[in-house]
């Protein structure tokens, strides 16, 4: 049952991810990315990360991707026209990519034989995350607020009508 659940969503995630990369129209890529995020949210659930699953849907799929779609629509971005790849990307990126994939798959397969059972970890509820967030991780939590402030400030600086 767990295996089937994993496989279904893993395959959805991979297919969607491939779609993100191969679709020429950004809007299709964006929709596919939402698919990846959704299936990942389910996988988070199987790993016992309830809070993160919710956050994934709300923050990522809900907020970030909406922003993306909004910008795509706003700019009325069409499909990619130019198909010629820059040679540097092909020559440098291709081998790098294959090496990365082989390396990662190899080393990941060679270890970690623990298995995941649905419900095998119950420490990821909102309560648990919340407690950690306001004790051990209080500092990063507070500091992240600066980050949000910068994001707001940055968006204002870049998108404002004119300098004064």
């Amino acid at each position: 049952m767990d295996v089937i659940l994993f496989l279904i969503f893993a395959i959805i995630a991979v297919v969607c991810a491939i779609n993100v990369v191969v679709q020429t129209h950004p809007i299709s890529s964006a929709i596919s990315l939402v698919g990846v995020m959704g299936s990942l949210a389910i996988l988070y659930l199987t790993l016992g990360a309830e809070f993160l699953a919710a956050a994934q849907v709300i923050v990522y799929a809900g907020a970030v991707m909406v922003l993306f779609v909004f910008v795509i629509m706003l700019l009325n971005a069409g499909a990619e026209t130019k198909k010629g790849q820059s040679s540097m990307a092909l020559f440098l990126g291709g081998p790098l990519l294959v090496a990365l994939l082989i390396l990662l798959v190899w080393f990941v397969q060679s270890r970690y034989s623990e298995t995941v059972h649905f419900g095998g970890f119950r420490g990821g509820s909102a309560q648990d995350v919340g407690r950690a967030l306001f004790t051990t991780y209080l500092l990063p939590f507070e500091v992240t607020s600066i980050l949000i402030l910068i994001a707001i400030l940055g968006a204002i600086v870049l998108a404002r009508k004119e300098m004064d």
Partner: protein
Amino acid sequence: MPANFTSAADLIRFLPEIILTIMGTLLMVLDPILNRRSSYAFGHLSIFALIVALGGSVYAYTQAGPAFGGLLVVDGFATFFRVLVIVVGILTILPSYRFLQRQDAETSEFHALLLFSVAGQCLMAASGDLIMVFIGLEISSISSYVLAGYLRDDKRANESALKYFLLGSFATAFFLYGVALIYGTTGTINLAAVRTAISGQNAPEPVIIAVAAALMFVGLGFKVSAAPFQMWAPDVYQGAPTPVTAFLSAGPKAAAFAVFLRIFMTAFDPVGGDWWPLVWGSALLSMTIGNFAALLQSNVKRMMAYSSIAHAGYVLVALTARSDVGTAAAMFYLAAYAFMNVGAFAVIGHLSGKGERYQNLDDFAGLAEKQPLTAAMLTIFMLSLIGVPLTGGFFGKFYIFKAALESHLVWLTVLGLLNSAVAAYYYLRILVMMYMHEPSDAASKVEPLSLGLRAALILPAIGTLFLGIFPGWVLDFAGKSSTLVR
């Protein structure tokens, strides 16, 4: 789980970041009031903030120790880099008074972003945990992205910001993947704990740590613009507003190197045998690519970008040495580099004129005749970048290669030194232009030095000479704190 998670000592150790954040926010809030009075008020206020933060970080050092349960570590190393990035912040603001005025772009946001960015860098310098490294890195980076694109209507600035942003985020993802692997294999992301975990009895397979180290190396390599991850630097440095370029090449870079050194010398030190060839290759490649590409540039900002790649290579040589002396040498070099580079960019920004039209090598022609002081200061910076004795750049280079030779890196030393001889050529070209040609259009139109600019030139020059003639004090401090990093 710690019961009392904040104490007074914790807050003191966190003082510089607190000060900078509060002042940054204050700047935004006070914008409507200050804007009407004087456009200089923002600059004054942020310099004040940085000076207070400087005091804060020194005060924090008197209470040295870990804070927030090991998330932060305030030690000599952290203090060294905190002070360094704050000083870089001050030296960035000084020339930007006039620069921003000329581009009609004085706003409180510029200064607020700068303060936040410096705060992020302070955080990076002092973080003892990968999550803090990550957040500090992002605070510093995101504000830098915006600063690079600060002149919104300038095409080059847009492009600069875009490339910086895309490649920066890309690098962050690699870094994070490395963090994930470390977390998965050791169960912790605290640097000291990671060190214990991978050197202990039941240490995980070294190859996994090596892969994690490699991924983090990719991420940090992008941030410090080390080859082969250097390709963004020329476009970004050329396109960004010059004071911002100066800042990018000194502040975030120093902070990224601080993180680099701390992670690799603390957490990954036990597996040093696995990663040093990687750093060795990157060091050599950075020096070579940087210096040889710089030979071909006619745009000075672009040339300085390649030069900064080369200098990242020199610092990597110090890292390759994997010793306390190497760490101290890297610290010293970054300090010297910050002075000479920020100073050089101050001159470039001063000369560039409205809309940054004059950035070419030819535009420096005859500057010595029109403005001897500016030319003399730039000469000091260039000689320091070349590595001529009695400047900080020379002593830093000397110390780096001394550390390398102590670690038996003979070839890297020889190749590095030969590289620095190649580099002499393109720095000298600027001197040739300034002193040995008839004044150009740009040099004839150059404005008189404003007070801020004067300070922005003379202070780094004093710093450069001080580090070259009396390196002892800084060196002792660096040497003392480098042993504590482990």
